[in-house]
């Protein structure tokens, strides 16, 4: 037992979203037509690579979504502020830390705990700025050695060769995994018939190369991060790689939770407006015209401001910093969802308007099937592709929106690690002399990879599921 489980609300939500997504995918795949479409998506090399990278991001986010309070060693427990939990055996009290950490934190505890005093460059062993050092000869101004970065390297002259050694070790270790996977993929691609289904074979080559690339990067990074700050440290000395990895959860969560909230709204209102028409249609149209006439950022800002003020006044007793940040994140996604359903609702309304005139709906009505059943059995399955396409397209926009909203000051909690907050605190660093570029570069790479993969995957999904565009390219 590592500690006492302390899952946040958003943890439950992100796991249940994965569950819902997995189940609906499994149901969808029972349909041969859908199976063929997914096969088509995976036969596009860019979509295959994106899917693998997206799954990696998701895995990291999920690892980061299992929070618990770690067990404290007996001697530490008395000094730290801690919660007494077990009162059954008074002799051996078990104590847990007051703040919760996640499984990812546990995996990264090396670089999580390795804090420097301030900036340090990637892979450096000396700090970024000079300090007064007291030596036997007196006080000198010099660059001090880092507390963590290359701390066990006794001879600084060996710095370069040490890095090379570790990189090579990482490469070598990764080969242990890459070679079996390569053999597996080669058998796989040989077995699958290449000619019978045209270009419908999944892009195994790309899949292998992506997985191999990720494994190599991961292995080298682990080797280096074990002794150095691979991507440097930021202003208060935190490891930038750690911050980048932790931000993944925030980004994925904002995208996924917002979609979870806007989906039912858009589905219910859109299909109802399109299918029933009449005053329901008028009301829904009025609602979304009004909401969409307010500029997006302003509406979000207004809502976040007023909800935050309300929270400050009424919920000051929320226990931990984590939970408070979590609550703000949930509220933000709620507001993003309430403002973001309009586009999907419009599409669904237009499509159900079209569908309700079709013969099979008329036939169902003539047989006396009730409206609710027609909606669920006959309309909903034919709207699935619109929902899917919109979800994958909107996801990347939401990840980008987080950064802008955090800059404006209505994004996630300032204490929460996110790309927006990273950019926000690092954006003035380019004006420094010498340049501090690594925080921005890290946020850029992590964010760009996620958004680019989401965009590429969305393109493939749209090509496969939108009959209008199929066959054009």
């Amino acid at each position, binding site marked *: 037992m590592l500690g006492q489980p302390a899952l946040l609300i958003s943890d439950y939500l992100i796991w249940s979203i994965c569950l819902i997504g997995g189940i609906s995918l499994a149901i969808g795949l029972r349909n041969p037509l859908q199976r063929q479409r997914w096969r088509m998506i995976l036969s596009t090399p860019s979509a295959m690579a994106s899917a693998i990278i997206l799954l990696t991001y998701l895995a990291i986010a999920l690892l980061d979504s299992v929070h618990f309070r770690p067990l404290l060693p007996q001697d530490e427990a008395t000094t730290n502020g801690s919660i007494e939990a077990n009162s059954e055996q008074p002799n051996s009290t078990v104590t847990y830390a007051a703040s919760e950490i996640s499984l990812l934190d546990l995996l990264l505890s090396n670089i999580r705990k390795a804090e420097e005093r301030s900036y340090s460059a990637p892979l450096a062993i000396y700090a970024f700025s000079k300090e007064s050092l007291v030596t036997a000869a007196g006080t000198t101004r010099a660059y001090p050695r880092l507390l963590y970065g290359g701390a066990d390297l006794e001879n600084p002259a060996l710095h370069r060769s040490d890095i090379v050694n570790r990189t090579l070790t990482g490469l070598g270790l990764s080969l242990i995994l890459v070679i079996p996977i390569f053999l597996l993929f080669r058998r796989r691609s040989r077995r699958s018939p290449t000619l019978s289904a045209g270009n419908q074979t999944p892009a195994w080559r790309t899949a292998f190369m992506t997985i191999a690339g990720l494994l190599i990067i991961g292995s080298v990074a682990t080797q280096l991060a074990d002794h150095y700050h691979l991507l440097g440290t930021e202003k208060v000395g935190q490891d930038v790689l750690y911050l980048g990895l932790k931000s993944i959860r925030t980004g994925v969560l904002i995208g996924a939770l917002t979609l979870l909230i806007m989906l039912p709204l858009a589905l219910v209102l859109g299909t109802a407006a399109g299918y029933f028409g009449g005053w329901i249609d008028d009301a829904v149209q*009025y609602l979304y015209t009004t909401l969409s*006439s307010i500029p997006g950022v302003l509406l979000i800002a207004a809502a976040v401001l007023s909800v935050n003020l309300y929270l400050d006044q009424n919920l000051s007793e929320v226990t931990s910093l984590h939970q408070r940040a979590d609550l703000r994140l949930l509220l933000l996604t709620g507001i993003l969802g309430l403002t973001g359903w309009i586009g999907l609702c419009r599409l669904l309304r237009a499509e159900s308007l079209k569908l309700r005139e079709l013969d099979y709906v008329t036939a169902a009505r003539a047989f006396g099937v009730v409206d609710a059943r027609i909606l669920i059995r006959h309309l909903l399955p034919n709207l699935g592709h619109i929902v899917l396409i919109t979800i994958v397209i909107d996801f990347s926009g939401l990840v980008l929106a987080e950064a802008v909203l955090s800059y404006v000051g209505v994004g996630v909690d300032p204490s929460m690690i996110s790309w927006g907050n990273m950019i926000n605190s690092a954006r003035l660093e380019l004006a420094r002399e010498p340049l501090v570029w690594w925080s921005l570069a890290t946020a850029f790479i992590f964010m760009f990879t996620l958004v680019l993969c989401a965009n590429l995957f969305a393109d493939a999904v749209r090509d496969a599921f939108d009959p209008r565009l199929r066959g054009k390219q």
Partner: protein
Amino acid sequence: MTRYLLRRLLYAIPILLGVNLITFSLFFVVNTPDDMAYKHLGDKRVTVEMVDKWKKDHGYDRPLIYAADRGGFARFSDTLFAQHSLKLFLLDFGRADDGRSIGTDIRQRMGPSLAIAIPNLLVGLLVYITVSLTLTFFRGTYIDFNGVLIAVAMMSISAMFYIIAGQFLLGKLLHLAPISGYQHGIAGFRFLITPVLVGLIAGLGGSVRWYRTLFLEEIEKDYIRSARARGLGEAAVLWRHLLRNALIPILTGVVVVIPTLFMGSLITESFFSIPGLGSYTIDAIRAQDFAIVRAMVFLGSLLYIAGLMLTDLSYVMVDPRVRLE
């Protein structure tokens, strides 16, 4: 057509009323004026008298929507809703928390916002159309394929990175333009270079990809084939025949945003410290000045609705098949 426009104008009223109700409930019902007073006066050692005085100074010492102690029409007019929300319809924006008139501020700050937004729109339109027509010309080749890939990659970069990179490259490394700032008049031209250029590049990916699909939709139509059959060169086909037809969706997309140009861009103006309406809004959000945020929300919706009506008009002008009834 006049009747159509009149009907649209009338239809705008319930929408604006709805916008008003939303902002009203966000700023007065979810948060009472008492909350706002405490927020601005600080939480510690605030007496009830101080709160009342703050509310009186800012005109928040009224009932929400119905004043029972007043007689006649004042029962409805002397309320928060009438004084703070309905007055927006008369473009009376009231005063900010620091006592400045919001209306005057808005008029002063419109100029700088437009100085960025208009060149951005015009140069952008020209560049995006040229690039996407070039891609259409090379459709099906590697140039087109890689062009789309680059466009998707450019779409995937946050606008903030473009701004930071633009400031760093043009301002700090090459010293071509000042990093940020603004100056009125012709002499201020150099301050506009970086924001406009950055805005142009930031929008390139998304626009080019969209315009390209519009062009590709048109290129398979019969009139293109007959133009080619008449012996026209590919350049003439693209620029004269294809563009004019594909311009309809592009133009209408542009016309919608013309009125909202006044609002400026939040992050561009804030990063380049341009004294426009975008930075005005962002400052208000950060200072939690609800009066300004409310005014900007209303103004934004008003301009957006105006944009929609302009779009309808522009449809009639560019496409003779469309008639407004």
